[in-house]
């Protein structure tokens, strides 16, 4: 536990030194301040006053709830797409940095398994993003809840889904980092796989358009094997707006991908010479 904590804290320290943590924190703070400002402007204040004056009639209440859910959905979508990509770009250097000559030898000379070192780094990285995501989502949730009296707990699911998908993409960063020791290549590999997701998600359409069976099979194989960033994002948007999710497959299959990629990363790391 002592060692795991030390590895996680070291990742935090490096994220702070590289301004990754503070950069993400500043963006989250700006968004929170933006919503605080929005809630203070006349038109919103007026709408809120109207509801207060005439009582929460069913229709008005429903309209406000829909608006709040819409805002929650927009924040979740922003966070899930731009926020997550920003986090991947920012943290892609945190794995290659520990593999630098002169640093890795010292880490490996300690009585800690290589698996522990790599997974400690991974966990620290996920925690940096989890803290910033929680800060932003909870901040927005509290602002809207306090102002409107409407508390939509489903919005909090966006913390789980964003952090989860970040962890899935980070596993690619870890594997690419161990293989090539380059932040740029890690980022490119991760973004390329993430960008394939919305294309592969059109597998129903592809089934109709593709003429040969093997291309249809290949499409489906890629769809099921690679992380479903797009599908999980769409599901998050639905859940945040209190709509039911049709299937949890995008989450569990992405979790399986993350596990397999991390295992590959750890195996290669254990066999490498430094």
């Amino acid at each position: 536990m002592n060692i795991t904590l030390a590895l996680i804290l070291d990742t935090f320290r490096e994220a702070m030194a590289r301004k990754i943590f503070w950069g993400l924190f500043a963006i989250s703070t700006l968004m929170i301040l933006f919503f605080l400002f929005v809630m203070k402007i006349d038109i919103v204040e007026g709408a809120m006053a109207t509801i207060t004056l005439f009582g929460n009639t069913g229709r008005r209440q429903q309209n406000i709830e829909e608006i709040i859910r819409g805002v929650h959905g927009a924040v979740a979508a922003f966070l899930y797409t731009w926020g997550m990509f920003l986090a991947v770009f920012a943290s892609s250097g945190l794995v290659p940095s520990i593999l630098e000559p002169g640093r890795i030898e010292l880490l490996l000379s300690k009585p800690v398994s290589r698996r522990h070192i790599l997974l400690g780094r991974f966990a620290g990285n996920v925690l940096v993003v989890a803290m910033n995501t929680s800060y932003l989502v909870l901040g927005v949730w509290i602002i809207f809840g306090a102002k409107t009296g409407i508390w939509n707990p489903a919005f909090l699911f966006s913390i789980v889904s964003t952090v989860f998908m970040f962890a899935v993409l980070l596993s690619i960063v870890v594997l690419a980092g161990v293989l090539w020791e380059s932040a740029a290549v890690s980022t490119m590999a991760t973004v390329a796989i993430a960008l394939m997701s919305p294309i592969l998600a059109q597998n129903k359409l592809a089934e109709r358009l593709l003429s040969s069976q093997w291309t249809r099979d290949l499409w489906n194989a890629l769809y099921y094997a690679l992380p479903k960033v797009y599908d999980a994002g769409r599901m998050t948007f639905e859940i945040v707006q209190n709509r039911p999710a049709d299937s949890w497959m995008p989450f569990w299959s992405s979790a399986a991908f993350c596990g397999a990629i991390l295992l590959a990363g750890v195996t290669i790391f254990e066999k490498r010479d430094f």
Partner: protein
Amino acid sequence: MSQYAIQTEELSKVFYHRWSGREVRAVDGISLTVRRGTTFGLLGPNGAGKTTFVKMLLSATHPTAGRARIFGRDVSDPEARGPVGYLPENHRFPTYFTGEGMLDFYAALSGVSAARRRQLIPELLESVGLDRWGGVRLGKYSKGMLQRVGLAQALIHAPELLILDEPSDGVDPVGRRQIRDILQQLESRGTTIFINSHLLVEVELFCREVAIINRGRLALTGEVRQLTAGKGYRLAAVSPADALREELTRRAQSVAGFNGSAEFLFATREDLNAAIDIIRQSGCEVESVTPTTNTLEDVFMQTVGAAANAKAGQEGKA
């Protein structure tokens, strides 16, 4: 508990070039033992395989063949590195650390409790002369200061075996003296110290035993005192039988062993010739005869030079 701090058996490392398929034997079948509590110097020219050898001891590089043990434990077991303190050559400590923060991190990885770390860190910083620099980021440290804080890092968990790669590199004479004093204190407490260094004078001053590696092979090993014993003649015999070895040892001033062969030092030409007669009578082969001098540098140059000449000779024949 093992009487040896380090034991290697036919330890080898071959690097393969991915595209050309060419192989480089960085370490070639080194069998070496380092006794517990000794001070041991590993010497060799650049590219001899010293760093690869040390990296295999720490499991940073995996051997192609053979095995290495630390205090009887195979180095592939992370626990084997528990009693080891290590200061690499060209270390790169993250510059976001302060001196204290860096020591705290590496001590935690070595399993030192938080309470003990709080107590030890100021003490160690003081012992390496950096007590006023503990709160300063490592980015502001000079090379010599980094070397000293690196040494503190290697000592923080009171290791039984200290492996130092060029410990005096970039350190000024005062700092060098300070490092030597610390190492002498550790030696008196029974810590095994293994130094990989280019500085022959430093190794001669500090180490009791040395090994010279050349082109990945163990070229010579023995006690510094014996290897640098007075002028005379050094005679290397190829794998002498036990009885012959005993007879020659009785006549010689000192003996050193390398890769199954033995090297005897004789004080006079008469003793040398008598020894050669005995060797020939027993059917054993003489590998080389070299006049000796009395510094480690001379021993080193002779050993490395002899190997280079032998290789040039082989290439010439080919």
